[in-house]
């Protein structure tokens, strides 16, 4: 199990007062806080061996390159990628998905083809496919969703057909908390010869991930949601697919030879890493991976499961509170309290030092499906405690009172 108090001491940002109360941070699904070791790793790169990678024939450059490639191997092990060269560093999950939408989808889709997407996607795993469909004449098709927000898997063969060329689906929903049975979906897709992209932005930080066991072809996630710095994300892809793809961006670092009229592409992964990457963030992500591995992803997952079950039970005791999404879920709870708008809720909780997210969470179709304009969301990570949940619940009671009182109810 995780020693939460020890973990909390590793996160300098948690040790502060907000509006006179100790900070309760419940917005890790938007971005996670950073342990000291990540902050120091980034600082050390700039303070001790700042240099460009893969170019400099000098001591600093050599050290930077070694650390950069070390981070790639760490990430590869973390998601059980078969080889580090299939791990490509990009800016974030959004860019990873767009890379596939441009370099793969635009060259492999045509009119009559179908892209199957789920209706519970973050905009970043929906809009790129809308654009790719528009560019190629392919059609979007959607999984069906159960009443509590799970993807229906009893009719996969009706949705994924011979026309399906690509299935793009999230591993864990950032709104409903749904954990998607990706393995089952990938199996159905591959039987029909379709390529499978998994958005792992909300799963990789919170549970053990094995891209080979999942059976997918592409897997995308962001460093900043898993204790790493902002500005680095990862695309993992099957070697055969990556090798046959055109580059996404052209420029330095991604070529093997260039004449004035044409170029030959560098080998993987450099073909997809044009220009100077976010070196500090990549190395920082390596430190975040080490930190999570040290805790053990099974333990991280178990901690969050315990917390979210406690939170669901406590939140259900608050009169007028509606929870959205399935019972079995990742470490987040999306809800509304009576007719108090989530913005007002977030403002009142913030006065109590509690940070939650309010809005549509970059998932407008999910909001429309829920029939609400916006929701509030509390999300948990390794540093959250049952006391955090208690503070949230107390804050919600205060909000009810306050709104009842001011409104003269």
């Amino acid at each position, binding site marked *: 199990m995780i020693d939460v108090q020890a973990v909390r001491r590793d996160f300098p940002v948690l040790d502060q007062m907000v509006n006179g109360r100790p900070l309760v941070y419940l917005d890790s699904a938007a971005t996670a806080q950073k342990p000291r070791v990540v902050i120091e790793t980034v600082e050390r790169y700039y303070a001790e061996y700042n240099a460009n990678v893969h170019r400099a024939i000098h001591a600093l450059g050599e050290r930077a390159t070694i650390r950069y490639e070390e981070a790639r191997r760490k990430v590869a092990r973390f998601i059980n990628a078969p080889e580090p060269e299939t791990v490509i560093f990009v800016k974030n999950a959004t860019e990873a998905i767009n890379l596939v939408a441009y370099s793969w989808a635009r060259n492999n889709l045509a009119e009559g083809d179908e892209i199957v997407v789920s209706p519970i996607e973050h905009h970043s795993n929906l809009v790129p496919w809308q654009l790719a469909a528009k560019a190629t004449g392919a059609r979007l098709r959607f999984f069906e969703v159960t009443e509590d927000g799970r993807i229906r898997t009893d009719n996969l063969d009706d949705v994924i057909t011979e026309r399906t060329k690509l299935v793009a689906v999230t591993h864990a929903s950032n709104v409903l908390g749904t954990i998607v049975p990706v393995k089952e979906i990938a199996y159905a897709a591959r039987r029909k010869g379709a390529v499978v992209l998994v958005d792992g932005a909300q799963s990789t930080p919170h549970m053990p991930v094995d891209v080979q066991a999942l059976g997918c072809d592409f897997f995308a996630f962001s460093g900043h949601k898993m204790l790493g710095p902002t500005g680095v994300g990862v695309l993992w892809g099957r070697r055969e697919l990556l090798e046959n793809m055109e580059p996404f961006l052209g420029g330095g670092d991604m070529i093997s030879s260039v004449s004035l009229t044409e170029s030959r592409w560098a080998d993987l992964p450099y073909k997809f890493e044009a220009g100077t990457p976010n070196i500090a963030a990549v190395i920082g992500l390596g430190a975040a991976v080490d930190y999570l591995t040290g805790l053990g992803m099974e333990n991280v997952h178990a901690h969050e499961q315990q917390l979210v079950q406690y939170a669901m039970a406590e939140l259900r005791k608050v009169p007028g509170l509606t929870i959205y999404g399935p019972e079995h879920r990742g470490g987040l709870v999306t809800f509304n309290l009576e007719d108090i708008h989530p913005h007002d809720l977030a403002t009142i909780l913030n006065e109590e030092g509690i940070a939650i997210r309010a809005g549509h969470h970059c998932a407008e179709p999910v909001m429309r499906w829920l029939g609400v*304009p916006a929701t509030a969301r509390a999300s948990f990570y390794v540093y959250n405690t049952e006391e955090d949940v208690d503070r949230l619940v107390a804050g919600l009671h205060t909000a009810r009172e*306050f709104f009842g009182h*001011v409104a003269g109810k």
Partner: protein
Amino acid sequence: MSLESNHPVRLSELYREVIMDHYRSPRNKGELPDPTVSIDLNNPTCGDEISLYLLVKDGVVQDARFSGQGCSISQASASMMTQAVKGKTVAEARDMVDRFKRMMHGDEEAGRPLGDAVALHGVSKFPVRIKCALLSWEALERSLEQLPG
């Protein structure tokens, strides 16, 4: 534990009685059958939406109504705005938009002639909520730009 006793100034400055009153009982809510101009605006990050309908004759805003949904601040602001611009000339309405924006930057005095809407000056101390308060006034500004002639 009362929240007001913990934070007497900040929250009661934001959620003044008059704001909550406009939120609970919005004025001029609904559609206008034959508006001179109408506009839909939303706040893409948080889902606040407003549709604004203006009836303008002889350079005067004869009627103003709104529909939509959102937080207490955005809804109260829309209600107060429609109340404030009714009967005003187009030039006066433009000046009011300008005054409201200045008030959101902390200039409470600028908001004095805005009627109930001056109560929203406290929002300027909550930077993340300013866009909620501004939404309807931005809808007004764009509507005025679209007026024929």
